[in-house]
């Protein structure tokens, strides 16, 4: 049966897996790609053109740390020149004012600056680097430049009670948007899950706080909030549906439906060095595998929500149940929901939170 292929809307370009930070919840795969495998400037430039041709509107330049690419200014220029809206997702390291000027001059539309919290010590502990002071400098530089800014706070058990400080930092800055994104449990975050998952009580308090903030700041600043889906009743529409809206290209040119797809066994990825992006989008085995509804098991297949959440996340299904084609087990209708409930019970049942520093698994850095 033919599966209808929609137009991709955004290209997530993981320009490199190198990064000066070592965040304990990094969304990169556990097997990081090396510098020698990274696509050169010309290939990325061609890919941006192919993406725009295929209907892509926005390029999210990310990593690793995209600033680790010496040719980043040229890449921004190429993406903007292809007609894309250019978004840089960055930690702000390594950056100085001259390079920031060059990026803005090259056509950068929007910068998403990540923060690990609004307190220097704990924030630096999470990223395993003394990055906080530099982030504040970058934020100040951004206020004097013509570029839109989003602050991205990654939220977890150890900083979820400090949302008020994060919000205050955001409000005192040039940012037009703040994202409070709870950690999602793949890769490095999965390795640290028991130390990162907030308790239900913490989560409920934080939702209340952010609803009030949204109300108060309506029209002035937009506040986005992503909950940890383990606590949700229904799964997230991961990536807006597999192969429906988003394309991710890894540092070496492999084209993936999402950040974590490499964890799914026997999924074959095409590479932009071998085929055009449109061809890959439309016919690649990895994209076709979970497109549409043919692959769905019950209860998804006959569920009223199948067009809303598309069965949830394939990678999470695999990581928690061993079957990538299972209903996302965070769904309350999943026959395997108990796998998630056991994890939550352990997090919520534990006695007093220890203030001792956890035994973090820090993200490695590839050569």
């Amino acid at each position, binding site marked *: 049966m033919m599966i209808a292929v929609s137009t991709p*809307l955004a290209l997530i370009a993981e320009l490199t897996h190198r990064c000066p930070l070592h965040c304990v919840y990094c969304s990169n795969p556990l097997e990081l790609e090396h510098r020698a495998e990274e696509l050169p400037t010309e290939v990325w430039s061609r890919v941006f053109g192919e993406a725009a041709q295929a209907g892509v509107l926005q390029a999210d330049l990310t990593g690793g740390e995209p600033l680790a690419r010496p040719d980043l200014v040229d890449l921004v220029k190429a993406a903007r020149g292809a007609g894309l809206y250019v*978004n840089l997702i960055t930690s702000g390291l390594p950056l100085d004012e001259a390079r920031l000027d060059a990026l803005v001059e090259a056509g950068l*539309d*929007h910068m998403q600056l990540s923060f690990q919290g609004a307190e220097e010590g704990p924030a630096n502990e999470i990223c395993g680097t003394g990055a906080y002071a530099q982030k504040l400098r970058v934020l100040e530089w951004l206020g004097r430049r*013509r*570029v*839109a800014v989003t602050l991205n706070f990654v939220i977890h058990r150890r900083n979820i009670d400090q949302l008020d400080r994060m919000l205050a930092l955001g409000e005192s800055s*040039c940012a037009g948007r703040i994202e409070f994104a709870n950690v999602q449990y793949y890769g490095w975050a999965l390795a640290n899950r028991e130390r990162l998952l907030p308790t239900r009580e913490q989560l409920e308090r934080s939702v209340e706080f952010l609803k009030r903030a949204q109300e108060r700041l309506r029209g002035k600043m937009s506040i986005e909030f992503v909950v940890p889906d383990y606590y949700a009743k229904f799964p997230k529409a991961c990536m807006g549906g597999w192969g429906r809206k988003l394309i991710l290209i890894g540092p070496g040119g492999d084209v993936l439906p999402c950040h974590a797809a490499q964890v799914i066994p026997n999924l074959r990825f095409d590479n932009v060095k071998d085929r055009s992006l449109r061809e890959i989008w439309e016919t690649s085995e990895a994209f076709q595998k979970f497109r549409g509804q043919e692959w769905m098991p019950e209860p998804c297949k006959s569920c009223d929500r199948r067009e809303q959440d598309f069965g949830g996340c394939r990678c999470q299904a695999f990581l928690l149940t061993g079957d990538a084609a299972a209903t996302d087990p965070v769904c309350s209708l999943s026959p395997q929901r108990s796998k998630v409930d056991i994890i939550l019970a352990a997090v919520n049942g534990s006695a007093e939170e220890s203030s001792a520093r956890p035994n973090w698994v820090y993200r490695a850095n590839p050569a």
Partner: protein
Amino acid sequence: MTPELNSRPVLPQGCRLNDKNQQPRVLHMPERALRLNGPSLEIIERCDGRHTVEQIIGELQQIYSKAEPRKVAEDILGYIARLHDQRALDFASGPAPERRQNEK
């Protein structure tokens, strides 16, 4: 919130129209894009910090002269208010500016 008739809507930092030769026409915003059809494109093209809301209404009433003028005005006011709530439109202050600085 109903926009003031003498206010001048302007696209904030990070929001811009794609190029004239690109199809479909969209309003880019951080993390999303809004597809624009005839009237919505006509409105957004005039959100340049120089046109007042009243001028935008007047010009669209001319373009869509077959529609009821009061309805055109209501639709435009509603559209502008909605985009402002979504932070896709700001209102310029002071004399009609050439270029806007990133605001604090």
